[in-house]
């Protein structure tokens, strides 16, 4: 009997939404104003977008049996690069970069995020460092790098075109939702319409056997950590655009853990092997649904973290093979 990994996150999302509906009959209310939808449901998706993006890369990383702790720091780097290129403050390290239009600035920031991921991939795939150690390097030094880039300042900017990445809307929905969905779709096509997903699962399931059948696990890992870096870079741009500022210290702080939790909630094993991108996306939405619920109920923020933890324990137990067996027996 094989159960879909999507089952539990879906049930829980449904339960939480239902709970909200009971507490606040207007919770599902969606209004249409200025060519876009507003409402709590839209808000949950919008807020979940950065973690959804991170969880796409994180799912692939975890499927290879690794973990990427550096995604929060990469978000900060991408935000700082973009803000720096727009504002060009005194002491900005990349001041000589001839990039001035918003599209090229976005590309430059994402490219630097990709380089960060590539660095992780080299350490893990080729130098064979343990993923947790290798990405810890950038997790710690990445924020330092972001601060160096911006000379320790929080750079604020006022470019409406760039801010639209985080606060604008297209085709009736906020842009972050579209960005997250597009990235997820591209990733989904990449892994399921090519053999990339199969190779990833093979490397994660049994790395020695993967070597023995001629799969180049080094280049697979290199590609996957680079993808994770790109996802983090895009998430970093959204986060910066949202507040019209690059805060090297706080942008994306602890989000790597949220991303890992989303993947776990989505039913992908931390040991590597089988993975589910859709599960991870639902996991990210579930966590945001809980957070939003707690905030709108006026529960103190401190309690959010504990409630989240309880939720994670519950879902992970529900999905663990031992408990599944007990239920059957």
């Amino acid at each position: 009997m094989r159960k879909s990994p999507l089952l539990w996150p879906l049930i829980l999302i449904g339960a939480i939404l239902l709970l909200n509906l009971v507490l606040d009959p207007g919770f599902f209310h969606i209004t249409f104003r200025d060519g876009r939808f507003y409402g709590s449901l839209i808000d949950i998706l919008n807020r979940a977008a950065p973690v959804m993006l991170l969880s796409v890369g994180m799912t692939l990383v975890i499927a290879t049996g690794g973990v990427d702790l550096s995604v929060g720091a990469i978000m900060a780097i991408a935000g700082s690069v973009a803000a720096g290129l727009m504002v060009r403050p005194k002491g900005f390290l990349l001041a000589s970069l001839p990039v001035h239009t918003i599209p090229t600035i976005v590309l430059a920031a994402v490219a630097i995020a990709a380089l960060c991921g590539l660095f992780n991939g080299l350490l893990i795939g080729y130098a064979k460092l343990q993923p947790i150690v290798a990405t810890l390097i950038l997790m710690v030094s990445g924020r330092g790098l972001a601060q160096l880039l911006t000379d320790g300042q929080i750079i604020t900017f006022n470019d409406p075109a760039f801010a639209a990445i985080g606060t604008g809307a297209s085709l009736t929905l906020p842009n972050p939702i579209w960005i997250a969905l597009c990235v997820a779709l591209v990733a989904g096509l990449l892994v399921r319409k090519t053999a990339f997903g199969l190779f990833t699962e093979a490397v994660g399931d049994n790395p020695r056997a993967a070597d023995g059948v001629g799969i180049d696990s080094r280049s697979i890992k290199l590609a996957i950590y680079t993808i994770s870096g790109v996802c983090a870079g895009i998430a970093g741009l959204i986060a910066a655009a949202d507040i019209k500022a690059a805060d090297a210290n706080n942008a994306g702080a602890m989000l790597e853990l949220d991303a890992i939790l989303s993947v776990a909630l989505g039913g992908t094993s931390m040991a590597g092997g089988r993975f589910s991108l859709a599960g991870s996306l639902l996991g990210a939405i579930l966590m945001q649904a809980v957070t939003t619920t707690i905030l709108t109920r006026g529960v103190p923020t401190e309690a959010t973290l504990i409630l989240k933890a309880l939720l994670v324990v519950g879902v992970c137990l529900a999905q663990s093979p031992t408990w599944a067996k007990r239920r059957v027996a």
Partner: protein
Amino acid sequence: MSGPLLQLSGIVKRFPGVVALDRVDFELRAGEVHTLMGENGAGKSSLLKVLTGVYKPDEGRIELAGQVIQPSSPAHAAELGIGAVYQEVNLAPNLSVAENVCLGREPRGKFGIQWKQMANRAEIALGRLGVNIDVHRPLSAYSIAIQQLVAIARGLDVSAKVLVLDEPTSSLDASEVESLFVAMKRLRDEGMGLVFVSHFLQQVEDISDRITILRNGKLVGAYEAKDLSRKELVSLMIGRDFSDLQTTAPVLSETQSSEVLSFKNVSHKGSVSGLDFTVRSGDVLGIAGLLGSGRTEAIRICFGFDSVSDGSATFNGVSYPLNPKKVIKHGMGHCPEDRKADGIFPNLSIAENIAIVKQAKRGWFRPIGSKELRNLADESIRDLKVATPDSRKKIGELSGGNQQKVLLARWLAANPKLMLLDEPTRGIDVGAKFEIAELIERLRQSGMAFIFVSSELTEVVHSSTQIAVMRDREQIAMMPGGVTKDDVLAKISEEKAG
């Protein structure tokens, strides 16, 4: 002692959709080694699990020394006097030998564990098996054989009357098996009853007093070992007569075969040396030698895992150095010795496990579609007679023999010129062994080449067109096909004396 030590009568164990044990009787006398035989799925492990309290039988009775018992767990069974040692040794390699022997039942005093007494107890337990080693050293400092004996010492509580040994020899070489058998005989002579399971026919003949055969969950019968010829044994197990089994070695027709692999005095620094052979299409090069003689190392060099540090080697016209990816591209395949650790992707489906080599050769950008995948899998499953209802099942759920067939299928799907088979028949039942031997011969006749390593010399001489004899990490001789097992053994020992 009057009456049997252990008596299982009318044991029935059902699982959803299958009767694993159908009114099976089993009797064990004190002071005997009683071997349980049968193909995979015959019910051996189910019977052992009933005996050791892992499964609760649906019907039937277990009597130990005349008392009815109902073991509810392995720990409970051990308390009752039934110890067990399983194929896969579950010991802690970094703990000391003494700690391993006493793990979970350490002698305790007021101030925690009494280390001296623990060492004492371990020494006594090992002494019973004829092993005298420093019990303070970590387990990993000793050979696999000693580790196996430590596992037995662990299974031997002072009060144990029955000891179950489930394939204890599968990772041991001949001399290590010998020392295990010495230990088993000591226990037997102390009046213990031993239940032994092994796939190695030679070992079964060497050690058994009696043999009980199971087939498809039913009892075939219990026999005195000395009255049972190997042929009878095999045909009782598989339920068909193997008189039609080909007994002459295959011969290579020299006329139209091209050179596939050529090794000229090849060595890998610190591993093996003197590898010198030529493999043509339609050849089966058997590598004979004891465990540790360098067989697997030779295979590793062929497949490009280890480099050629001296001598010259070519595969398919291309000179080494080559890595696995390259040799695969040029048409080599490799079934590794350790199927679980190096071969299967346990959580991927059977179909994916079959398609993976073909896919890896194609590259990630040209995926095998779902229809092609299903066809490929179904075809392989039919061709190789893999026993599974559904190619979407995880390969980890298959028996060892079927996993091995899937691993073969994975390479055959890529149509290789040369297959390296490192112990392809280890741990699989006799029926599947014959099937794999037949498959090799069939493919050989169609022009595929093989390098075949097996601990069972009989299999090597049976399948090979030429044999490379290895000893002490060196190739010491080449022999033509058609020689007997004794010829090869003589070669190995003769060189040793000189």
